[in-house]
Structures are given as C-alpha cells and as structure tokens.
C-alpha cells in the first residue's frame, strides 16, 4: 500500500520525525482561511500517487490567502500527467506547508533488501532529485548500511552514515535520531520503503522531512487497521478490486498494457502465478500477446473457474482464451465443470477457447469437456499456438 505524502507525514509525526508546519485541505476555502490565520509564504502541494507532480504543475507557491485560494481552485480537479503516468491523476486534496529556506537537501531511505534479507539504509548528501539519477551519475555519493533486525537500530548507524555520506555539519546532531525514528516507522508499520527526499537543512538550522514516501506491506496491514482503512480513501486499482470481488487475491488478476503498438488479444487463465507467467511467455513465443492474466490459485472450485472466465472475457481486447491448468491441489474435474458452466450461461461474452488440462484428475476433467464437445490440447506450447491462431481469426 503506497501512502500519499500527507499520510506518510502523519506517520512521520507519530514517530517523531520533524515535518514542516501546515494543513491538509480538500477545499480552496480551507486553504484561504489557513493562510489568512498564518501569514507567510506557503507551498501548495497536490496530493497524488504519481511521481513528477512538480514538473506536471502540481506544486504552487502562495504569499497570501487570496493568492492561495486562487491557486487551490486551479489545482483541485486538475489532472496531472507525466511520462510514467500518461493517463494522469486528478488532484483531490492539497497539503499546504510552510515554505522553508533551504540550506541543504539530503536523501535518506530504508527499504527491504531481499537478497541480504535485511533492511538497507541509503543516504546521500545529494537530495531533492531522483536517487536513481544520483546512483547512475555518482554512485560513490550514496552510502548504504544493512541493519541487523536482531540488533535493531542504534545511533552510531546514523552518525556513521552522516559522516560517510558527508552530510553538512548542520545535519549531524539531528540525523541519528531522525534515522532511528524512520527505522521505528519502517519496522513498526511493516514498510517496504520509507523515504525522505529531500531531508532539508533549513537556513535557521532545523532538519525537516520536506517530502514523505511510504510504502507498506499489504500482508502486514491487518496489524494497523487505522491505516488499512486509508486504503479506501485512495484510488484503487480496478484490476485488484475485480480480483477481490470474485474471491481471489489482490494481485491474482491484471490487465496488461498494450506495448509497442501491439495489442494483446489472448486471455490467460492458469493455476499459479509462475505457470501463468510461463503461459504468457508461451503466447508470446507463439507470436501473439496476452491481453490479461488471471491466476485462479490452488484448489479452485468450478464456481471460481466460471467467475474467472467471465472476468477475463470482460476485457474487450480478448479475442481468444487459453486456460492452462497443471493439476496439483487443483483438480481437473472441477476446472472442467467450471468451464462447461461458464459456457452454458447466456450472460457472458464467449470467445474461442483453448484448454490444456493435466495433473490431478485430468482424465475426469477431459471426459467432462469431451461430453460438452470440447477437445483439450496436450501441451502448453501447443495450446499457446492454438490460442494465438484463434485470436487472430484462425481456427
């Protein structure tokens, strides 16, 4: 679960990381009255998930209430677009924050290093820009430290990183405790990533988290029901919602983007993500492309197979479907039953179908399909080739 900046800063404040003063606003009037009550220079920051909101015109500066209100009106409802996000994202809320006088900008993040199986801290004195850019241009400027979760965080880690990354002296006192608080947030809230970029040293000597990027592990969200419910306030992924609606996991269904002008036209259902990916690969190897991908998981019953069929064909790009089942826990007879039931209904869009069924109860499944006048293919490669041919109008 990715958090928006204002949500990330909420967590920052809970663990004691200094953030700029300000207010979260969903109406232009609130922006105006806040600035009126707190004269000074303010930044209006669009609260969106996408990156590059600054370049997209999502950040504005206001010096008085009237100006602030006008800018807020301009921002609310605006659709910000970027190269990574061509569809754009609508601005529904703003964070109004004090405009600080920046002396220096650093970068700090903690992420899970899968290979080391430890949290890894990244620090560089070159903050305020994309860290991938720094990594490419000046890799030596990024200091890393792997924290042993058994030992946990201790201030020497922050001291060492501040010295090694050559953070300006003004950071030194505050940095070890800010990193400690960030580690607390990372561990206590089960984050995949916590990032402060930039961590600002102000001209008056404060060290403040000017931005907040927090990504929490969905599997750990149940421990934090108050945060889990933020999810509902956020733009939901339609695919995830659709998968959950029929009783699958969030990431068991995904529509695939059309790439390089090529439109994927084969719908793919498989049991297991690995086999699903393998099936997509097979479709591509056969000269076609998958339009989407659905993993029915292990032990699917007929009803789920039917619902899955319907979901996949609801994607209008799908011209043919390839169901690829390797029965382990999943039983071939259940899958076959589901297919027959799905095809029997009148309420679904039907497309040419290729089924490959092997493993547990495959014989029984094949018998059910045969009775419905349907002959499954023998191998994955064969099935993929057939599906690609059918999708392009062949037989």
């Amino acid at each position, binding site marked *: 679960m990715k958090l928006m900046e204002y949500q990330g800063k909420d967590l920052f404040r809970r663990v004691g990381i200094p953030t700029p003063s300000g207010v979260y606003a969903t109406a232009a009037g609130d922006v105006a009255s806040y600035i009126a009550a707190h004269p000074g220079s303010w930044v209006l920051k669009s609260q969106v998930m996408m990156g590059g909101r600054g370049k997209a015109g999502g950040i504005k500066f206001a010096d008085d209430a009237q100006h602030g209100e006008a800018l807020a009106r301009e921002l609310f409802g605006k659709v910000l677009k970027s190269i990574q996000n061509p569809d754009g994202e609508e601005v529904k809320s703003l964070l109004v924050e004090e405009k600080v006088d920046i002396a220096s900008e650093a970068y700090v993040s903690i992420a899970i290093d899968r290979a080391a199986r430890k949290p890894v801290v990244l620090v560089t004195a070159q903050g305020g820009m994309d860290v991938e850019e720094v990594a490419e241009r000046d890799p030596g400027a990024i200091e890393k430290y792997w924290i042993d979760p058994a030992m946990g965080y201790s201030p020497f880690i922050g001291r060492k990183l501040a010295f090694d990354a050559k953070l300006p002296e003004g950071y030194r006192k505050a940095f070890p405790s800010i990193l400690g608080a960030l580690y607390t947030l990372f561990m206590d809230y089960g984050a995949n990533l916590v990032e402060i970029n930039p961590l600002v040293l102000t001209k008056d000597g404060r060290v403040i988290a000017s931005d907040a990027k927090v990504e929490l592990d969905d599997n750990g969200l149940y421990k934090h029901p108050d945060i889990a419910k933020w999810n509902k306030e956020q733009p939901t992924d339609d695919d995830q919602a659709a998968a959950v609606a029929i009783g699958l996991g969030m990431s068991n269904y995904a529509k695939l983007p059309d790439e390089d002008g090529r439109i994927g036209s084969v719908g793919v259902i498989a049991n297991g993500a690995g086999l699903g990916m393998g099936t997509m690969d097979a479709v591509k190897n056969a000269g076609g492309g998958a339009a989407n991908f659905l993993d029915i998981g*292990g032990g699917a019953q007929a009803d789920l197979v039917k619902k899955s069929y319907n979901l996949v064909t609801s994607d209008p790009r799908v011209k043919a479907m390839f169901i690829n089942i390797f029965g382990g826990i999943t039983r071939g007879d259940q899958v076959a039953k589901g297919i027959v039931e799905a095809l029997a209904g009148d309420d679904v869009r039907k497309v040419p179908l290729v089924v490959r069924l092997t493993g547990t109860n495959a014989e029984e499944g094949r018998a059910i399909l045969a009775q419905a006048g349907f002959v499954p293919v023998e*191998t994955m490669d064969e099935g993929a080739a057939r599906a690609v041919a059918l999708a392009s109008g062949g037989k």
Partner: protein
Amino acid sequence: MAIFVDKNSKVIVQGITGREGAFHTQRMLAYGTKIVGGVTPGKGGTTIESGQPVFDTVKDAVEATGATHSIIFVPPFAGADALWEAYDAGIALAVCITEGIPAHDMLRVVNTTPGMRIIGGNCPGVISPGKSLIGIMPGHVFKEGNVGMISRSGTLTYEIVDGLTRAGFGQSTCVGIGGDPIIGTTFVDCLRAFANDPETEAIVVAGEIGGSDEEDAAAFIKEHITGKPVIGFIGGRSAPKGKRLGHAGAIISGNTGTPESKVKAFAEAGVPVADRPSDIPKLLASRLKPVPA
C-alpha cells in the same frame, strides 16, 4: 542422498487438523513421507484418523517422536510464530507453505533462527522423489533420478518437472523456494547443497523476473559449480515492465530483475537459458544421459 529431505526424515505437521494441513498430511503419507505426528494446540493427546498423534506444542511433538522436519500450514498471522516455535523445539528444517506472511515477520524470523533451514514461505515445498515429499506438490509428476531442480514458482515447476520426467530425467530433489519478498532458502543455498550432493549430476534453475536471486545464483554457479551442468529458465520474460504478476517477488526494479539482466548473468556463468519449459529437456540431453523409464 538427495538434499534437505530423504526417506528417513521424520516430519511433523504444524496445523495438522486444519483443512489444508489434514488434506496434505494424507497426500504426503500416501507418497510415503514419514509423518510422525502433528501439532494443534488444544488437541494434544488425540490422534488423527490415519493414526498419527497430535500434540499441543512442537516441543512435545519433537520429544515424543524425534521429528527433525516440519511442514507448516497455519494462517499468515501465525506464520512467524510457527517458525519460531519450530526453531525453539530444535527442528532442523521447516517448510512453510503459508502464503501472505508479513514481510517484516519473515525479516525477523530469518535473522533470528540461525542453523534452522526454512523453505518458503509461500512455497510448494520440497520433494526427493521416491523418498519423501514435504510439501503440496503432485507427487506423481516426479521421478527419482539425478537432476536437482530449484524453482521460485509452484505450478511452473510441475510443468518443467513433467517435461523432465517424460524425457527420462528423474530428479534427486526439487525445491520450490517460494515467491515472497523474504524467503528462508535462496537459489544459492540450494545450489550449495546440490554441489555437495553426489546423487545430483545436473541442476535446473527455474527463475522468474524480478529480484536478484537469479543473478546471485549465476554468480555462485560461475564460482563454485563444476562438473555438473546447469540449465536456466526465466519465467515472465514477456511480462511488461513494472507490472505486478501474482508473485510479489516478480516486480521488475532497477537494472537487476529484468529478463535481460538474468539471461546475461546466466550466460556469463556458462548456463544455457531455455526459451520455454519444453526446451529444458533438450538442453539437458546434450549434457546428461537420460534414464529411460
């Protein structure tokens, strides 16, 4: 020999009376696995229908049965607890089937259980064909032999193994390491074990896009595996960049994790990469003699 499990491995099932646990206990018993008992708190002192005793704690089970291996079927929130209980009771190898254990739970578990081998979570388990199955794999697909197999996915493994078996390549041990961000046993761990296993004469590494496990495996192979041919495979090569596909592990990020990066790493280690699962037996055939069924 084989690795991790053999026919003498004494196995307990954590969550033996649950739906999944009960079902797979019977499948494993049918395969010949030495299931010596199971654990369900509050049901200690009873036995399941097939006769295996149930204990309240893993410690009780280990003390009564001498079990060294455990397979875990518990809800995600109890996954770390089950692994720690296994560790505390002196279990040497725990297979964690549970999917959806919080990454931070696993982070803490893998860093505080030195000496215990954990396979998974979110994995199909491990099988030494003809000897023992500790997992949820369809046993009939596998055949005893001399090819070691490691994979990040479940069903794709069956697909590949089925092809191997049909082509006359039996398997010494197959390990499904699981697709979660933090897992107990990596490709490299398995490769190290296969390198020392005299029964294993060739190795198939079935990777996926995302992460750097395949790159790490390639580096290890280059350095440490000699005299045993290795065949690679990368699932999801057709997946669009950045799209999440079922396995949380399969997110492409940065420069490692791309199919190109993985294929290149394998190539540099002298490992041929099969374009499709059905190519694996062909690539193997030129390096190892199949044993007709």
